[in-house]
């Protein structure tokens, strides 16, 4: 890791405002201008220079400890890091290794696994994708059926994953597999690491509603990996994946997505001449107030994080409100956009005037990362403590399913 003006010994010793200023300076100095505010999810070949820049300055992994090559940020500093990246419109890199796999390995991996994998992530040598969802296990993730059987020193894997973001860019996949089908469905799931170039692995991109190709299906046909590619204990994969949700669950409810969208709604309203319409103004103000109150709600949860408290099931309220607010803003765009909002390309080629694109992208927000319906089930059970159907005891189990582990574009 090279030295740079931005590579501090201890970021956490900085005041919050100093650190915030540092992040801004970093982005101003280093973010490639042409990648700012990308209109779609970047592929590895597009994002690589930025990834390597982050790596070179030691800014790639805000939450990882210093000794693993991360920034070792406290929760409140991580919140600032993310907030400023979002505010700036920084491009997202293929970061599943950093954001999801790394923390899990740090907590549950063997020393050998950490030594083997973490440096290669920091160096940009390994790009990971996440293999959780399956065709019949999306919101109901615990129903996954991709099977791994231990045969001698190898796991033999058969099955299919889907909604695997940027799988075509990855050379490794971390995945949940079924290793026992007898007990409760949440049990009997293990966590395996598989090279994407293993014989029997094949990848098929899926075109999404916004006509982008960021997800894939991944097929496993008698794929073999060594026994030591298991992370943690056999049949403990579910528990491990759930335990890692602590920190990142709040980001599903970050107000930034809606804040960007509302700024775009305003710009669109000015473009189409709706801005001076009192009926539009009324709707716009309602959306703004929803956003402002959402920010207040977000801060309540952020405070908990800063104080090291558990977020609890209530954090699902944030996800529901953010995703539905984002959709309502995008609905308003389409509503005022007229024929211009029916076009495939942004209006006048301006990325910020792309109502149809935002509208279509927003459809995903209430489906992935735990569909709104599932989030409501979780709150009903775990926050409101409403009862299950008496004759339906056997369906109670799924409500423990925390589908925030589900895939998401």
């Amino acid at each position, binding site marked *: 890791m090279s030295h740079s003006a931005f590579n501090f010994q201890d970021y956490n010793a900085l005041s919050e405002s100093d650190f915030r200023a540092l992040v801004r300076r970093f982005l101003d100095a280093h973010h490639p201008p042409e990648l700012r505010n990308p209109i779609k999810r970047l592929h590895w070949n597009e994002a690589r220079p930025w990834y390597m820049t982050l790596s070179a300055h030691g800014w790639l992994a805000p939450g990882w400890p210093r000794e693993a090559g991360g920034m070792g940020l406290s929760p409140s500093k991580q919140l600032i890091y993310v907030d400023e990246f979002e505010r700036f419109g920084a491009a997202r890199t293929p970061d599943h290794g950093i954001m999801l796999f790394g923390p899990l390995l740090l907590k549950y991996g063997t020393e050998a696994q950490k030594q083997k994998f973490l440096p290669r992530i920091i160096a940009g040598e390994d790009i990971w994708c996440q293999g959780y969802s399956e065709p*019949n296990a999306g919101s109901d993730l615990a129903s996954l059926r991709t099977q791994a059987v231990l045969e001698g020193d190898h796991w033999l894997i058969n099955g299919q994953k889907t909604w695997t973001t940027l799988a075509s860019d990855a050379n490794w996949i971390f995945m949940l597999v079924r290793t026992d089908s007898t007990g409760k469905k949440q049990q009997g799931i293990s966590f395996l690491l598989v090279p994407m170039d293993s014989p029997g692995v094949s990848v098929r991109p899926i*075109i999404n509603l916004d006509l982008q190709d960021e997800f894939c299906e991944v097929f496993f046909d008698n794929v073999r990996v060594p026994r030591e590619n298991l992370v943690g204990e056999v049949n403990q994969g579910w528990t491990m994946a759930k335990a890692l949700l602590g920190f990142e669950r709040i980001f599903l409810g970050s107000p930034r997505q809606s804040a960007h969208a509302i700024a775009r709604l305003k710009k669109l309203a000015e473009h*189409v001449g709706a801005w001076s319409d009192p009926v539009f103004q009324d709707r716009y103000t309602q959306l703004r107030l929803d956003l402002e109150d959402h920010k207040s709600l977000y801060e309540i949860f952020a405070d908990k994080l800063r104080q090291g408290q558990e977020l609890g099931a209530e954090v699902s309220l944030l996800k529901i409100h953010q995703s539905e607010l984002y959709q309502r803003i995008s609905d308003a765009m389409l509503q005022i956009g007229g*024929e211009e*909002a*029916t076009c*495939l390309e942004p209006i006048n080629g301006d990325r910020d005037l792309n109502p149809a694109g935002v*509208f279509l992208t927003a459809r995903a927000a*209430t489906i992935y990362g735990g569909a709104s*319906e599932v989030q409501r089930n979780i709150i009903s059970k775990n926050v409101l403590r409403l009862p299950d159907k008496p004759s339906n005891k056997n369906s109670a189990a799924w409500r423990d399913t925390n589908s925030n582990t589900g895939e998401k574009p």
Partner: protein
Amino acid sequence: MGLSPEQLENVRMLRESAAAVADKQDLTRIRSQRFALPGFDRQVWQTMSELGWLGLALPEANGGAGLGMVEMAALAEELGAALSPEPFIAATLAVNLLGPELRSAAMAGEIIILPALQEKPQDLGRSGDLTRFEDGRVSGRKVFVPMAAGADAFVVSTRGGLAVVDAKADGVLVETIQAQDGGHWGTVSFSGALATPTEGDLAGALDQAIIATSAYLLGVIDAALELTLDYLNTREQFGAKLGSFQALQHRAVDLKLQAALTRASVTDAASILDADTTRAAKSAAASRAKARASDAAMLVTRQAIQLHGGIGYTDEHDIGLFLRKAMVLSPWLGDSTWHRRRFAALTAEHDEQASSPARSGQLADAEVQ
């Protein structure tokens, strides 16, 4: 307000014959036309004209079938359910504005004539035409001309009245923009293009096209809802059919309610257009139908995606095609906001006599117990 036995029979026959070009079960043809030019099938167009559809609502004296809006709405609904990309509604609008010769050729499918009316987005009748028509030549620019790349000629609204311009004539430039449904819009520029005058009841033709578009959207709504109900009835999650979850059931009921209101509104509007009443009453009915159909189509198709979950967010599944069609047709010929305001303006006096305020619901209550 029910239909006459004759109308019912016409409608039944039309719906049957619509199956010839509109296959609700297989959208392969629809997919194959997406994002291509002209974006529809000239072969299918030929069949449509042979079936007499382009002159469906023209008087028999004009070579038409002499049917009414009721029948045209039934047909448009079938086309909507199958997501037909052919510019049937636009061409029918144009046919209303042609003289005998061109009308016959258009009805026979020999030439495709499409209307080029708007000069700005969301500008249906809001501001006057800037396009000029002088000395037999047209100059100006029209936007959001549906499926313009497939047109052999345009009916153009100008300050000097309606004019027909050959698409291949000198001084005509057709540029296209892809639309989300796989079709396209034309921006058509005329610089002194040779034109022939034509005339017709543009306001009446527009109301007809507005109701036909509402009916098309009704078809979209019903088909999207049906696809969704099928999905709810087959897909299992958490150990049960999706459709057995009460929260989803109730949402499906709300969509069904909007579908039923749209059907009621469109059916009424079609009957009113066929009835002997004022232009204002007809336009108000058309606006009511389009306001309902536009909003209901967006609601139903959006919710259809949500109810499909992850698979609904792929382009591979057909349900997205219905959303994209709703996105394009909801604003076309006036979005719901525009039509609500037109309705309010057209019915400002009527609203007075709605009814004298009375004890709310006393006899409505009354029948309850």
